[in-house]
């Protein structure tokens, strides 16, 4: 019998992890990333096709009858752990999770434009991006549910990789061909996740759902995104800790490995405790999403409130405990730091998620 919440990894998940890790290790090492991130196209050529098509990772959330793998958020979370570990630029969170889950929220109608789009996302043939600021939280307090601003949408993640934008308009959700929208790239803090201003005004597109259905579907997409972002943060934090431990074991000062000083050891041990907690929180969120638990909004908020801080702390400790080398462009620590800091804002800051917890758990702010 399955436990109420399964917080462990299955064998299938371990196998998937190994496949993704091997792919990223071969094709997207940190030197490759450093060579690309200042170009117009930070995505490693062919990598999306390998991950999405060959491994089948883009279709994990999509049922088999709609052209996907029929897996769940638990498996997608493992993919994101690996993408976080390697700080890989790929539109996985944006297309294979947020956009895909948004469309799944509308897919009840069987065949039609939604199913068609979903199938092409699941195969990795097309990339779709929900045209909302990357900071949008899934909860009612976030921008996702407020008035819909007309005009350009600021800071849309992976917009430059999109073939299709999912655009909320007052009368519903639209699929807008990327070529019809005006996409103006921005200079992001995290060069591994391109940001752009997307202006879909007057770009037409086809209407996929009415306003009510759109609101619920977008909420669902953002909730899954926030919940699985915790796994990206977990993977990143774990990698930062591993690299820091490895470096401080080798680096000698004062005729000792610097990792033998208690002042450093305690910081790394504390980080390990935080990573252990992050793993439990991220697994709980992935499992709650996978099982459609009514607890999912709370579990996701807890995972985000916790894991976003852990990832930032791990990356900051990684830079500090590497000393001078950690401050250089040549060393990959800055890639993790910039990703972690941006992820802290992505899909709702810790504060927004705590506000959601306060509402859900009836722990109100002072009147």
């Amino acid at each position, binding site marked *: 019998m399955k436990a109420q919440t399964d917080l462990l990894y299955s064998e299938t998940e371990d196998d998937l992890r190994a496949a993704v890790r091997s792919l990223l290790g071969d094709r997207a090492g940190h030197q490759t990333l450093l060579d690309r991130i200042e170009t117009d196209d930070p995505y490693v050529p062919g990598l999306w096709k390998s991950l999405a098509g060959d491994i089948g990772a883009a279709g994990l959330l999509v049922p088999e009858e709609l052209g996907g793998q029929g897996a769940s958020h638990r498996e997608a979370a493992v993919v994101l752990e690996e993408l976080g570990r390697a700080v890989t630029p790929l539109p996985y969170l944006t297309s294979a999770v947020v956009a895909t889950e948004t469309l799944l929220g509308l897919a009840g109608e069987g065949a039609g434009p939604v199913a068609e789009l979903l199938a092409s996302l699941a195969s990795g043939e097309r990339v779709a991006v929900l045209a909302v600021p990357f900071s949008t939280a899934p909860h009612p307090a976030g921008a996702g549910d407020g008035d819909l601003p007309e005009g350009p949408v600021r800071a849309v993640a992976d917009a430059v990789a999109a073939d299709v934008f999912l655009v909320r308009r007052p009368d519903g959700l639209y699929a807008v061909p990327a070529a019809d929208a005006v996409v103006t790239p921005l200079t992001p803090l995290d060069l591994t996740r391109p940001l752009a201003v997307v202006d879909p005004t007057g770009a037409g597109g086809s209407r996929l759902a009415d306003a009510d259905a759109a609101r619920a579907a977008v909420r669902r997409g953002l909730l899954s995104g926030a919940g699985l972002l915790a796994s990206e943060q977990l993977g990143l934090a774990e990698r930062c800790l591993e690299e820091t431990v490895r470096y401080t074991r080798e680096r000698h000062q004062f005729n000792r490995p610097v990792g033998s000083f208690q002042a450093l050891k305690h910081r790394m*041990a504390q980080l390990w405790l935080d990573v252990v907690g992050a793993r439990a929180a991220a697994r709980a969120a992935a499992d709650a999403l996978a099982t459609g638990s009514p607890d999912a909004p709370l579990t996701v908020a807890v995972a985000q409130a916790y894991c976003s801080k852990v990832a930032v702390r791990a990356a900051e400790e990684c830079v500090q405990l590497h000393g001078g080398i950690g401050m250089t462009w040549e060393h990959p620590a800055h890639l993790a730091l910039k990703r972690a800091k941006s992820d802290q804002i992505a899909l709702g800051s810790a504060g927004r998620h705590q506000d959601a917890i306060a509402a859900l758990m009836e722990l109100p702010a002072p009147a």
Partner: protein
Amino acid sequence: MTDAEELRSRTRRLLAEHPPATTGRTDFLKARFDAGLAWVHYPVGLGGLDAPRALQAVVDAELAAADAPDNDPRRIGIGLGMAAPTLLAYGSEDVKSRFLRPLWVGEEVWCQLFSEPGAGSDLAALGTRAVRDGDEWVIDGQKVWTSSAHVARWAILIARTDPEAPKHRGITYFVCDMTDPGVEVRPLRQITGEAEFNEVFLTGVRIPDAHRLGEVGDGWRVAQTTLMNERVSIGGARIPREGGMIGKLATTWRERPELRTHDLHRRLLDLWVDAEVARLTGERLRQQLVAGQPGPEGSAMKLGFARLNQAISGLEVELLGDEGLLYGEWEMRRPELVDFTGRDAGYRYLRSKGNSIEGGTTEVLLNIVAERVLGLPPEPRNDKDVAWKDLAR
């Protein structure tokens, strides 16, 4: 091989032959022990059936459903969690059959004589002497932080048998009779006003050599068995959301809107998230143990709970304002059981200060995590190959 089905039918047979409703508590527990259903992973004849440890849950579920009495494990935690595994691993057949049954049933309470005033984090530096006299050992020294010493019948004791050897190598492990006239137990009052621990003075206490566990000079290794089992016993039960101290704080928050401020709200939510993640971490550890994949995460639990308990109870005292200025009562009592969440917020605040000291200080446990889990190099040491008698103290 004993399987779940067999255990279930054995348990039902026990319940049929000794109906809990009409059987005395101790008699029922003795019958349960003799049926091999006390701890199923123990050997046949010693309360077990050589069955997989995970199958204990099958027995416990049957017994709980029948409202059978348990052995009040919290009262005899040191016996169950520390003495028993060590007796099992190192005791002679006579020792095992003499001690394990009354220990498990709860007729004989055990305590632990390890820490000393001069040997806390550096337990291996202990100075209580054990000198051989024919078939006996004569013990002289002082132990401290001994819970249950005033109610204990027996103690597990480590003492120095060879002062010439380096500190880890001159220690021997014994079972000590707490009724020996040379044992004097004095309450040790702590910052809460209570005395849940004791000082134990040992003066010419005589222990038969038959009550030695392990070889002479091998006591440090034997003690590792004891301490390792202390960690395994953590994380047994599933904790509900808002279980423990955070539940008290959350309840106060909900019921007392006049106490709320924005600053306290932000800190409450921080701690609520940390407590929920600690709960999930414990649940994940529990699932790992059930699946037979024990990880090093157990040591994370103790460190996390110490910090959390202190922060939560500290915030609660602050939240209470005028009431936080008060304290329930300072009368010196000697409680047999300690409930960290019991009594008022002020008590919880003070008692939880011990959580980062008892059972390994946070500083020492962080060293252990750093060295054993992360593989970081140890601090350079100058005490490993020096005779105990030549160490600075």
